């Protein structure tokens, strides 16, 4: 085996190794610890790009851990979708880490960098694994790390939100385990590709149990994706988190969406009997409701970070409206918009932080305050982030929404989807315009002197600017990106491809 053969394990191994080293170094030599963390993120991005290059020609790489043959051992599967999500996660991690280092948010508590690396390990593992129980394990890894990151910096507000976040996710994990137990009892396997084949051969008397297991599993993914009515945990959690952490958390709901896209066609596809396309009747209404709630929240939010948190719900809803079609064109559009909306939400969280740092006691509340440093530059960043978030031209959100609108016309209920997407866009736009004009155009009349803002350096504008530049790049390279997304969607919707790659000659 050459080095290239081991490529799929790298995105998991790099952060797993970097975390303990960063932990050791942070005690005495802070700079070295930060360097380890940054280098690890760069290496992850490199590995993810290499996997993307490998997957972009259509090969599905199955990596058998310990060389145990596929249905018995654990496999990692790197296909187009997984590689795309890995690149997105690594890019987002670099931006968030850069912002944390530049704004010194990583110094507000212990162990920021090791937790950050473990978070990346969980994310990358969840994207790569081809085994349902391993998906649970990586979910737990990323959740445990996220508990620590969310509480980073402490304070009563974070602790209060933290208790709710942890309790909700513990219940979610328990339900995940029940679903796994049922599926294992029915099929005798945990390998997703193998399970997809065995589900088709289930006896008629087991169909009811299969349907229950499938619905439980889908509900857990919906909880992670914060789909209405399971979205209530998200806003408070994200709005009180350290902004750099919240920017990274923008991809956490997308892990739920990813799992849905990965598991449903593979395991509960056409051949699954009573569980075939099991979330289909519920997904579209739930997605439309969460898009509505999300953008209504953007409209009424009292602060920028709350607005960004609601945007996460709204954009996940928009993505799922397209996912609910389960066709190549709709899924491709959803994947393109998923990449865009993740980076856009992260950019908005970072802009909220930039604003809060400059306004002292007024923080990022949507109320007029005194003049602050770099007002026009920050205002420009906010405007661009708002344009990206609502999906106006010229940034990639416009192209993404256009693709979604165009692709859903092939579905029977497309009128509803159009209505919801266009209305939420308008509501979101008004909400951002309202907050933006309050923050950047109005001045407080009161003579109350603002708390002295920390020595204003403009370096904290860099990370959000990079995020927005990436969105511009996604817009310029939309032809290639959407072609890739469509190819990834086609690959995901053909479970036989990955079954062949994972199980090899076992399937004939």
């Amino acid at each position, binding site marked *: 085996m050459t080095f290239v053969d081991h490529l799929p394990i790298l995105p998991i191994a790099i952060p797993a190794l970097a975390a303990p080293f960063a932990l050791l170094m942070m005690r005495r030599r802070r700079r070295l610890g930060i360097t380890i963390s940054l280098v690890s993120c760069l290496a992850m991005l490199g590995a993810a790009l290499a996997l993307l290059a490998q997957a972009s020609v259509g090969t599905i790489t199955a990596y058998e851990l310990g060389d145990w043959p596929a249905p018995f051992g654990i496999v990692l599967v790197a296909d187009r979708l997984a590689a795309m999500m890995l690149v997105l996660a690594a890019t987002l991690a670099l931006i968030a880490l850069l912002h944390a280092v530049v704004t010194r948010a990583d110094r507000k508590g212990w162990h920021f960098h090791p937790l950050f690396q473990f978070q990346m390990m969980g994310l990358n593992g969840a994207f790569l694994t081809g085994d349902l*129980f391993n998906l649970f394990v990586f979910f737990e890894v990323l959740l*445990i790390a996220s508990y620590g990151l969310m509480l980073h910096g402490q304070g*009563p507000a974070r602790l209060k939100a933290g208790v709710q976040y942890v309790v909700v996710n513990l219940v979610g*994990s*328990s339900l995940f385990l029940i679903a796994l137990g049922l599926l294992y*009892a029915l099929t005798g396997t945990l390998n997703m590709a193998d399970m997809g084949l065995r589900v088709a051969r289930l006896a008629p008397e087991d169909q009811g149990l299969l349907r229950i297991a499938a619905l439980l599993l889908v509900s857990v993914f919906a909880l992670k994706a914060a789909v209405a009515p399971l979205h209530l945990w998200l806003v408070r959690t994200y709005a009180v988190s350290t902004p750099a952490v919240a920017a990274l958390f923008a991809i956490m709901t997308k892990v739920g969406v990813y799992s849905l896209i990965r598991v449903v066609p593979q395991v509960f596809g056409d051949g699954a009997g009573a569980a075939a396309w099991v979330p289909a009747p519920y997904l579209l209404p739930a997605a439309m409701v969460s898009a509505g709630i999300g953008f209504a929240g953007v409209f009424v939010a009292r602060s920028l970070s709350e607005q960004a948190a609601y945007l996460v719900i709204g954009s996940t809803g928009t993505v799922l409206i397209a996912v609910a079609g389960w066709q190549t064109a709709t899924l491709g559009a959803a994947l393109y918009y998923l990449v865009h909306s993740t980076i856009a939400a992260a950019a908005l969280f970072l802009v909220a932080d930039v604003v809060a740092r400059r306004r002292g006691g007024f923080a990022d509340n949507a109320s007029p305050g005194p003049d602050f440093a770099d007002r026009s530059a920050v205002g420009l960043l906010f405007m661009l982030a708002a344009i990206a978030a609502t999906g106006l031209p010229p940034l990639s959100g416009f192209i993404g929404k256009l693709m979604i609108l165009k692709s859903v016309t092939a579905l029977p209920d497309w009128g509803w989807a159009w209505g919801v997407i266009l209305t939420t866009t308008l509501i979101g736009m008004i909400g951002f315009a309202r907050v933006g004009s309050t923050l950047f155009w109005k001045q407080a009349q009161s003579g109350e002197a603002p708390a002295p803002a920390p020595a204003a350096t403009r370096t904290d504008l860099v990370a959000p600017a990079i995020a927005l530049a990436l969105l511009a790049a996604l817009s310029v390279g939309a032809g290639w990106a959407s072609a890739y997304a469509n190819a990834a969607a086609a690959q995901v919707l053909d479970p036989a491809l990955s079954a062949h790659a994972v199980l090899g000659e076992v399937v004939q």
Partner: protein
Amino acid sequence: MTYEFLMASGIGVLVAGGIFLALRARTFQVVLGLTLFSYAVNLFLFASGRLKLNRPPIWSETITDYTDPLPQALVLTAIVITFGMTAFVVILALRNFLESGSDHVDGDTVTGDAQDGLIDDGAQGQRP
């Protein structure tokens, strides 16, 4: 048959108690509820390999009837994870109580003593 009945009803009772406690307002009961619920889940996972008595958990050419070893490995993983999580949530709830003076999950600011009826919290929601 009785063994299956015992197992199933045990899981059912644990789940019922767990859900009831998890829906209570204060963190200690919620933590207890989650613990009960996770016990039920562990038993359920264990049972997913079918209930068999006095059979070896290994497969070999000479053995025709064996218990499925995989659910036991899964249960072990699940126990370790839920144990760590429970420890974490206990510490978190404790920190939250010490910092905010309230152990209500929903962000209620009534102090712990007032909830217990030890003091009359006339100033509803005013924290010490």
